[in-house]
């Protein structure tokens, strides 16, 4: 049923015949083979697979922070594999929100400043930037922690700040790489609930890499990678 619903929505990400390998000195290590699939607008996709299966690499390619060897990735109308580094940086700033396993907040910036950081690449005036950041922090329930530095917050709180930073620019897609990997169970549940709400209430397209079945359970669609190959038969979430 969910699979059918996904097909009815517009495709936001279209991946075709994607290959990626890494070069280690003279050694070429293939990571992804002929990946082809679509992600519908408003989808909450979980990419699962064992370590070394290529799921983070695939996520990085979709988010435009790595370059494919071959194939195409259309996000909206843009084939991001054809963009230069500068164009990609600009594209990422406008279209992608990032959530990482280790939160990756800037340690010398307060929570509000971390959230405000991506808005400095927009033309918003300072006052509006601050308002937007405050709103984003309010959405993750951290208004009271806005003047705190990352080192003064728990892991769960830091990840919520990272989510606020990811959504503050209202991006086309949200990518999350093991967002609960460094959290205790309670905090992990909170983060997953938050992501679920972003998807269901705000219609955000979320692509999440995880090896945690509990986290994957929250996604609407599941894709499985194994040794660089995508299993195209498991688009519905059986979990």
């Amino acid at each position: 049923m969910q699979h059918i619903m996904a097909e009815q929505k517009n495709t936001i990400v279209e991946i075709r015949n994607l290959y990626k390998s890494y070069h280690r000195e003279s050694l070429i290590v293939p990571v992804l083979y002929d990946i082809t699939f679509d992600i519908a607008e408003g989808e909450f996709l979980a990419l699962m697979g064992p370590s070394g299966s290529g799921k983070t690499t695939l996520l990085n390619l979709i988010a435009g922070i790595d370059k494919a060897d071959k194939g195409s990735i259309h996000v909206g109308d843009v084939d991001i594999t054809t963009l230069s580094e500068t164009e990609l940086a600009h594209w990422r700033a406008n279209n992608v929100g990032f959530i990482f396993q280790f939160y990756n907040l800037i340690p010398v910036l307060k929570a509000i400043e971390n959230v405000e950081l991506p808005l400095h690449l927009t033309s918003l005036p300072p006052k509006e930037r601050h308002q937007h950041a405050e709103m984003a922090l309010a959405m993750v329930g951290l208004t009271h922690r806005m003047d705190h530095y990352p080192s003064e917050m728990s892991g769960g709180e830091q990840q919520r700040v990272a989510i606020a930073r990811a959504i503050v620019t209202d991006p086309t897609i949200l990518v999350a790489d093991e967002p609960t990997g460094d959290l205790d169970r309670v905090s992990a549940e909170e983060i997953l609930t938050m992501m679920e709400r972003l998807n269901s209430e705000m219609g955000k397209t979320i692509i999440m890499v995880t090896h945690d079945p509990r986290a994957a359970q929250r996604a609407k669609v599941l894709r499985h990678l194994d040794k660089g190959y995508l299993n195209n038969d498991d688009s519905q979430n059986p979990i």
Partner: protein
Amino acid sequence: MMILKILFRNAFHNKLRSSLTILGIAVAILAFGLLRTVISSWYAGVEAASTSRLVTRNAISIIFPLPISYNEKIRQIEGVKIVSYGNWFGGIYIDEKNFFANFCVEPRTYFELYPEFVLDPLQKKAFLADRKGFVAGRKLAARYGWKPGDTVTLKGTIYQGNWDFVLRGLYSGRDETVDESQFFFHWDYLNETLKKTAPGRADQVGFYMVGVVRPDVAPDTAIAIDKSFKNSLAETLTETEKAFNQGFIAMSGAIVTAIQMVSFVVIIIIMAVVANTMAMTTRERTGDYAIMKTLGFGGKDITILIFGESLVITLTGCVIGMILTFPAAKAFGSTLDNFFPTFIVSTDTLYYDVLAAILIAFLAAIIPTRHAIRIRIADGLRRIG
């Protein structure tokens, strides 16, 4: 604005490391500043030389004298305004370690030719009236506690015997660059004594100081003076006071070059220290830079962050070093005032300090910046965790 905020906070995020680096830079700038001041003190005589004064000496060497009879001949040469003369006396006060410059001069013309030596008119009158009188610089008198009326004995090295003098005046420098540690007495006192004790050495002078009417006539006047004594028993060499003083400095050129080299070595060492700090800092922040690149910030922003941080740390150390240079130079100068009568931190030295700091900051940041810009985002993110 946010970039500047990150830059400044990054610079002082690791307080211990930043403080130690800043301290290292401050000490290096202090050492650099002092060494530069030693060099500029060495050249102080050259810098203070007047463009309207010439020095005439024996063409063979400064150690050979000239006849006193040249005085009148030089005075009559076109372009000459005033002529004075004198000898290096080379006397020792009590012990050889008490070194100071002591000259016998023709006092009336000498003080007219050197208006930078400011002498009270009454003291000048007393000095001129007393053939055994002498004038000392303010600093020299203070060093040995001499007061007007005191008798001071110098032991002659070039002119044997003990020579008694009475302090008649203390001169001050017109400005802080003037050497206030010299000793002047009457040439007549030396000459008359020599007439009795060593007649063959009488009526001779070590050098003539010649004042010209205008600085632009100095070269032609110098040629004219030397031409007048061509083919005589004592041919002359006349040059500007600056060139004459430079000739003395050239004798110790190797020492000056060594000091200059040491000052540059200090800069190179501290450059390595700052480069090491920046390399560690950049390596530590690889994840931060990767995140910023992920969010859409470009190489230009990363460059500003790293170069800016390097500049903030280096300039902070530089300012502290520059502030410390003044009391250190004062202490250094008073300890070694026998050798460096004027030990003043010049504006040029401060410019060199700032220039050196900026150079250190930029050179130290080049490789870390290149690395931070070139690293793939995915590799940068992998460093976290």
